[in-house]
């Protein structure tokens, strides 16, 4: 049976549309989405802005949350793998660890097979 994978994406410093831009391109996110992954954002940007950014790039997301809300995401979605991708130790990695998510830095994620055809 295929593993159900949930990916939580930070925006600034992680996505190419972030401020500063990160390594993950929107096309990579689209590829992961096309593979059936549960995709959402987890950023310090306002929730409404998170949704708007992804919508502007024609990517439908399953959730948009603040950094401290990763446990809520885990509760809401059933998956075999939960992974947060972000560029900060204090605001990404530590929140991911606390929520029992796997964690990847943006450059690691950009090279990961999840984001490639």
């Amino acid at each position, binding site marked *: 049976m295929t593993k159900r994978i949930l990916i939580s994406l930070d925006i600034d410093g992680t996505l190419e549309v972030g401020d500063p831009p990160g390594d993950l391109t929107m096309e990579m996110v689209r590829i992961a989405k096309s593979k059936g992954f549960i995709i959402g954002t987890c950023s*310090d940007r*306002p*929730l*409404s*802005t998170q949704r708007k950014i992804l919508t502007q790039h024609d990517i439908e997301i399953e959730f948009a*949350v*603040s950094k*401290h809300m990763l446990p809520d995401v885990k509760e809401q979605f059933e998956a075999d793998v939960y992974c947060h991708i972000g560029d900060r130790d204090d605001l990404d990695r530590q929140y991911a660890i606390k929520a029992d998510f796997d964690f990847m830095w943006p450059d690691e994620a950009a090279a990961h097979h999840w984001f490639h055809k």
Partner: protein
Amino acid sequence: MATQNAPQSMYRSEEGLGIWEHRGKVAAVGIGHSPTERRWDGHRDTSVGALSILALRKAMEDAGVTPDQVDGLVITPVTTTGAFWPEEDPLPWDVIKSYNQTDDPLDGIAKLSAEWLLKNMPELTNVKYTQYGPTCMSNALNVASQAVGDGLTNVCLVLKAWHNLPGRYYQSGPNAHDTIQGTPAIRTLWGAPACSGTALQFAEYCRKYGKTHDMMAPFMINSRRNGLMMPEGYWYQHRPEELTAEDYEYARWIAKPANLFDNDIPIMMAGAYLFTTAERAKDMKQKPVYILNHASSEAIPRSLTPTLDEVEAETASTARKIYEGAGITAADLSFENMYDGFPQFHQFHIEGLGYRGIKFGEALDFYQTDISIEGPNPVSPSGGNIGAGRSRVWLHTDSIQQIQGRAGARAVTGVKPEIAVSGGPMPLGGNYTVWSATPD
């Protein structure tokens, strides 16, 4: 002699001083702003010195004044509250050497002296008066108002600039050391964020008056909305993001009950004004905005963080000083632009003022009514630091622009902009200016 901080005698920090002796005889005319940036990119033309020169030149141009007519310069020499040049980082000598230097290589990079500006603005050939109003534009405005009124300068530029460096705010400078001397050691030892003192006061406020954090949402939404109509501001220029009640409610706590959006975003910018006498202002390009009074709060709390009782006593006292010197009452205010960075003390300021008749404990209920620029009770039409980024300048720029009829999409329409008050920063420790469309 190097430029000095203004003497204590220039500030109106006591109650009972009566009408300000220069009431209506000093005016703001020109406004100049640099573009904003989130952080310095290391280039010459985006340094805090460069932004300052740009803002000053714009203020002169806006007022229709040639540089040789300027004879005074009042600035704030400190250009950050939390972005200090890391000791281990090499100095940016290429940028430093591209300007005329003072003895301090970080002058124009991470701080600013009047001497540096004069060395790099050769067109200012007649400046004979320089003075520092430390920390905030609010302070510099008080100094400039008094200096023009006292005849120390006739055409005076006033400047406040901010730099911001890569890396985290408040993590450098003394906070990066293993030990810290003095009182800050007690605060910093526990790693309390800058907003923690205000958060404590706000928590006590909510407990005392039975209010909740989510009652701040209309103020936050209104501030960001107004800020997104301020073309000079950071959010307008770079990230036109609205705030919704949901956005505010679900932001992470920084120091509960202060969340991420209860903190302003540090940026780079410079803002400048041209002040002159009411008489001289008549010949200038923009409509004069007359200064009816300036007032200061210099209260010192009994302990590390002011209590709510101390905050309320001081904001009430500040209001009495503001009104007494200006010869007005709360009912005369068309709008208010008190400081908001941290937003949770904005209500302390306006309760102290008795803005629209509100009393202590009533501001959050007031926020649930129409506080928009279109309504009869505009609150923070500038959008403040929440709407435009950390500058402590927008509140003054907006007050001047509203009264000059130059606030654009942000113009208050529910009231006629005739008299306004702006200032801050803290409820204990701030400087305030009363602006008017007429000198009397």
